[in-house]
């Protein structure tokens, strides 16, 4: 009788173990997988909610962003706008009292830092008293368009009436996003002396006039 009870107990244990391993364990694994996926989905929900808050914030400030983009466009215009710059520099020279003697802008060239910027190097020669030249330099910094001064050379000279006049040579840079002229890309496979011409850096900018041919 006791032996039968032991066999029955062993049978129950074996059946329970089999039940656990073959029926319950796969379900537990499924539950764990589903819970993991739910946790990931909850994280995604948090991320999406943050993203939505940020986007709503941007939408609420859209006017401010558009105004800011407008100001940044004025600093670095899409086109060279050299005519405006010459007028502005002329006006600045008149306002500050310096005599604008020469202004030598070069054509827009690709920036050396590899960005989409085009640089317009401008050499200028002005003459005036020290504080007039100082005012001119401050005025360049405050212009609506971005002007950076890379080099300043001053030399003093004495006029016939004994007054000291400073002559200033200023190297400036303006920035734009367009080349002056579109660069014509060579046809595919064109080679010169066995070397393929690289035109990657010579693509026209967004504001270049496609109708003007060099």
């Amino acid at each position, binding site marked *: 009788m006791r032996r039968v009870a032991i066999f029955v107990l062993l049978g129950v244990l074996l059946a329970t173990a089999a039940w656990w391993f073959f029926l319950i364990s796969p379900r537990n694994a499924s539950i764990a997988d589903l*819970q993991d*996926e739910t946790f990931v989905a909850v994280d995604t929900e948090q991320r999406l909610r943050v993203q939505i808050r940020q986007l709503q914030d*941007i939408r609420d400030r859209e006017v*401010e962003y558009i105004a*800011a*983009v407008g100001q*940044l466009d004025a600093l670095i215009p899409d086109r060279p706008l050299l005519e405006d710059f010459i007028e502005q520099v002329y006006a600045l020279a008149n306002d500050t009292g310096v005599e604008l003697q020469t202004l030598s802008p070069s054509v827009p060239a690709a920036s050396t830092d590899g960005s989409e910027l085009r640089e317009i190097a401008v050499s200028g020669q002005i003459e005036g008293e020290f504080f007039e030249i100082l005012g001119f330099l401050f005025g360049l910094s405050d212009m609506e368009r971005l002007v*950076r001064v890379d080099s300043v050379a001053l030399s003093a000279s004495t006029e016939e009436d004994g007054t000291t006049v400073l002559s200033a040579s200023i190297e400036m840079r303006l920035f734009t996003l367009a080349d002056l002229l579109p660069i014509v890309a060579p046809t595919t496979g064109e080679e010169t002396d066995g070397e393929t011409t690289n035109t990657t850096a010579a693509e026209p900018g967004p504001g270049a006039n496609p109708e003007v041919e060099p």
Partner: protein
Amino acid sequence: MRPINLLPPEVAQERGRRRRVAIAVFAAFAYVFLLGVGVLYWNGRVDAARDDLDAQTSINQSLEREVTELGNTADVRTQYEAKAELVRGALAIDVDWGILLNDLARLLPPRVWVETFNGTVSAESIPGVIGQVSFSGVGFDFPDVSAWLRALDSDQFAGITGPWVSTVSQGIIGVDGVVTFSSTAVLTTGAATDRADTLIPEVP
């Protein structure tokens, strides 16, 4: 009164055996029933977990639709950030020459004047050095040149360091003896402006 059983003992044994078999069969059914209930319970847990996931997926799909609808509004910010980055790039290592010359005039020793000034910004090849300035000036005597060097090297002139005089020579202006000198110094990051931060409009 004590009951008296006149049936043979085999009958009692047979009844006992049948009762034990019945109990065993009942126990077996109960056991199988419990296992079945367990399977149903775990199936319920799996279904609940799947429902949770489906509900969460549904919420996420709704949020993703909202993100897609709002997606266009991010363009203006992307545009703003790209243009701001261009301005920062354009104004990397920018020197405010007006302030530099103003400081120079303010700190110039009393018996020294500058005849020529040349300042150039260059790429930062040595950490902290962003350019070079050179001067030619006039003083009344050699100690004035020392005063010039001290003035350039003073803490009040944050944008310039490493002043040096390469030549000092005696001369005459009118009837007065003077010394003329050539001097150089390097521009430090102290002379660089934070114009990019000022010019880029801040959108809170």
